[in-house]
């Protein structure tokens, strides 16, 4: 039971990180970032390169420095990739006509280009990431939980809490929330749409970079490894209501739970079916998702 809960929460925290990033980008920038998968993979590859470098030059294969470096560099790499997406898709397009559709297509194009370039540089093989929390397991009587799982849950929870607090209390957070409500109004009272949008993109990039590094505990990094988190993240941010942090987290927990339960009691292959059935059910009864904040705000 605890194992089931732990694996559900691990999935939930990873999906939640990606989904919160997508949700944040959509609500503040007004662009559905389909290049989030590329951003996710970019963080993974930066962390992989760092681990390779440390292993080759300093023979460091585990330990606190490596773990910290992997996490920080993974987040940084993804943040830079997020800024790249912003520079290519958001800055040139955000004041043009038909921005939502054109932004979506531009990010899709970036995602296609990025995936293929990773394919050229790193090849189609999967690359392993170091186990940042070690490989030991914590035992409770007959149950046991891997340190990696606990670490993932704890780190994701802390980071999501920090982001929520930052959004609620800081000046930037206030600007971002103003932009979510009414971008034109925010612009008129002196919020720079361009700066705030780029910060939102970098932040969501850093979040998915963290998810990438954490997911590297379970999966490996490959050029197309961003597709699955992107799709699940999109579904979660939809089901949670684009723009609502609590709704997104709730949806992430729900979907993680469904995935863990289905994989445990039925078959791994049925997981997508169960997830889609859940999302369709949610969207049928609440077409704007669980949080449902953006009813008519963005047009």
């Amino acid at each position, binding site marked *: 039971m605890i194992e089931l809960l732990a694996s559900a929460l691990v999935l939930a925290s990873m999906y939640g990180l990606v989904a919160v990033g997508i949700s944040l980008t959509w609500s503040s920038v007004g662009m559905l970032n389909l290049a989030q998968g590329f951003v996710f993979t970019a963080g993974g590859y930066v962390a992989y390169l760092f681990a390779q470098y440390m292993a080759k030059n300093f023979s460091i294969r585990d330990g606190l420095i490596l773990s910290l470096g992997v996490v920080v560099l993974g987040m940084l790499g993804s943040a830079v990739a997020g800024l790249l997406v912003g520079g*290519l898709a958001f800055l040139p397009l955000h004041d043009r006509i*038909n921005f939502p559709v054109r932004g979506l297509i531009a990010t*899709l*194009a970036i995602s*296609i280009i990025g995936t293929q370039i990773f394919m*050229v540089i790193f090849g189609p093989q999967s690359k392993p990431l170091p186990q940042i929390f070690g490989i030991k397991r914590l035992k409770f009587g007959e149950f046991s939980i891997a340190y990696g799982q606990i670490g993932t849950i704890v780190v994701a929870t802390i980071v999501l809490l920090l982001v929520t607090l930052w959004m609620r209390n800081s000046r930037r957070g206030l600007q971002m929330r103003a932009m979510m409500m009414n971008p034109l109004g925010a612009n008129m009272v002196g919020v720079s749409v361009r700066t705030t949008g780029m910060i939102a993109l970098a932040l969501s990039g850093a979040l998915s970079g963290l998810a990438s590094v954490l997911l590297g505990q379970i999966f490996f990094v490959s050029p197309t490894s961003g597709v699955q988190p992107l799709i699940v993240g999109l579904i979660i941010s939809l089901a949670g209501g684009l723009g609502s942090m609590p709704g997104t987290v709730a949806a992430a927990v729900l979907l993680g739970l469904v995935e863990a339960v289905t994989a445990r009691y039925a078959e791994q292959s049925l997981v997508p079916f169960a997830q*889609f059935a859940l999302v369709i059910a949610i*969207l049928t009864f609440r*077409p704007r998702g669980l949080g449902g904040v953006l009813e008519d705000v963005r047009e």
Partner: protein
Amino acid sequence: MSNSSVGRRRLIPRWRVKSSSLSRRFRVPGTKRSLLRFEGRYNPKTLQRELILRDKKPLFWLIGLFALAFIPIAIGQQLVFSIFGSICFFAAVNVFWTLIIGTAGLQSFASLATVGVGAYAATYLSITYGISWPVMLVIGTAFGGLMGLIISIPARRLDGLYYALLTIGISEFCRNYITQSDALGGQFNGALFGADRIVPEEAMQTTTGQTIAYLTSFVVLLISLAIFRVVSGGRIGILLRTAQSSKEDESFASAIGIDFQRARLLVFLIASAALGFVGAFYATNQGGASLSLFSLDQMLLLLAMIVIGGLGKAEGAVVGTVIVVFLNQWFTSWGPWRIVLVGILMLASVLYTRNGLFGLRQQLIEIRERRKALSRATRTTRYGAFLPEQGPEIPDKGVIAEREFERAIRDQLRDWITPEIIEEHRLSPMGQHSDHLERILNYFRKQPISNKYVVYCEESYKAYRVVALSGIPGVPPRSVDDKTYSNLDEAYHAVFLRRINDLKSQH
């Protein structure tokens, strides 16, 4: 285009016609449409009756489709046949997808999945019950329509991106279902082959067989274009265009009694059934179906085709398909770089064009108009005889040329006016003058009568005054000032000074 700007010359082919055959026009039997849109007019110079072809698109379509049909047959290689076959297949899919996205305005990404459903259903039934290819086509159409019916249910409640993501989900769902299902070739990674073919497999080795197979795909493309034309250009398309661009438009459409939801679903169902037909055709052409019909990558490639060509237009869908499929299948030796190139094309077309390749023309025209207006507004020497924005409103360009000429003359004369010239005129207003003074005087003599300064004789040899003619018969001249001159020469010189004054202040 009207004559909305100065100095534009566009190449419009003209046909001289007899004025007796003016009202004769070919119409498509049963309709009021004519094949080519001609406009009759009189040539403004020769005053002869002529016809102008207003819409050249049908000609381009004809040339393009001819090229598409005969290039592979002329080359006759298997690779070229397969590339052009893919072009026809994907173009047909894209045309129907354009019908869904552009005309119906539903952001559905499940169109390739609908094709897949049609293909798998037809293949499965053909393998299991041994049905022949015409029945397969019917079955594919039916299954496509059924799939459309299922997908259209959530479209009533969801809109925009939500619906887009749901349809992406549905196609992933279908892909997963097929990999799980043993009956649909799950154990062979979704490859299900062995269906009845239009051209038997052994005939596919010969050039004749390949030609026939290619021509059938070309016919499918033609069918898709015809359906697009009928649906999008017909009544239902007009109804939907009213409700197309925004929420306000939807409210407006329903306010004037258009049930756009119903029209949308109808178009969606027609397009879905047609997509099922294309899928069944794929099965009869390839002898089965494969999982690539459901893959996300393939769908992104299709989206790239539509985006590069221009969203919402049949010609955009076809040309975008030609570009992307050619890049993708001809340059296979480039490896991943060719996909990167497709991505770059897609990015460029989104960043720099408003609506792909076929929105480019309108965009360029607008840019040119803007530049022209800007330069007209900043120009002071040309068109100086009137306000710059008046320029486009004068239909007779000869008037513009004349005013420009007058203005050039005035500029020239103004430079010639010097104290010496004035002194020369004062000394002898009549008689022979220097060249410059003579030209100035000739210019003054040519001026129109209204407001022309003349000498008025109050008392012969004693009192003369300067007056201005009204230019209207029966209206007396107005007096300009109350100065009187004792002799005629002084009065002439006073008129001359006034005219020079006016010339200096005029631009």
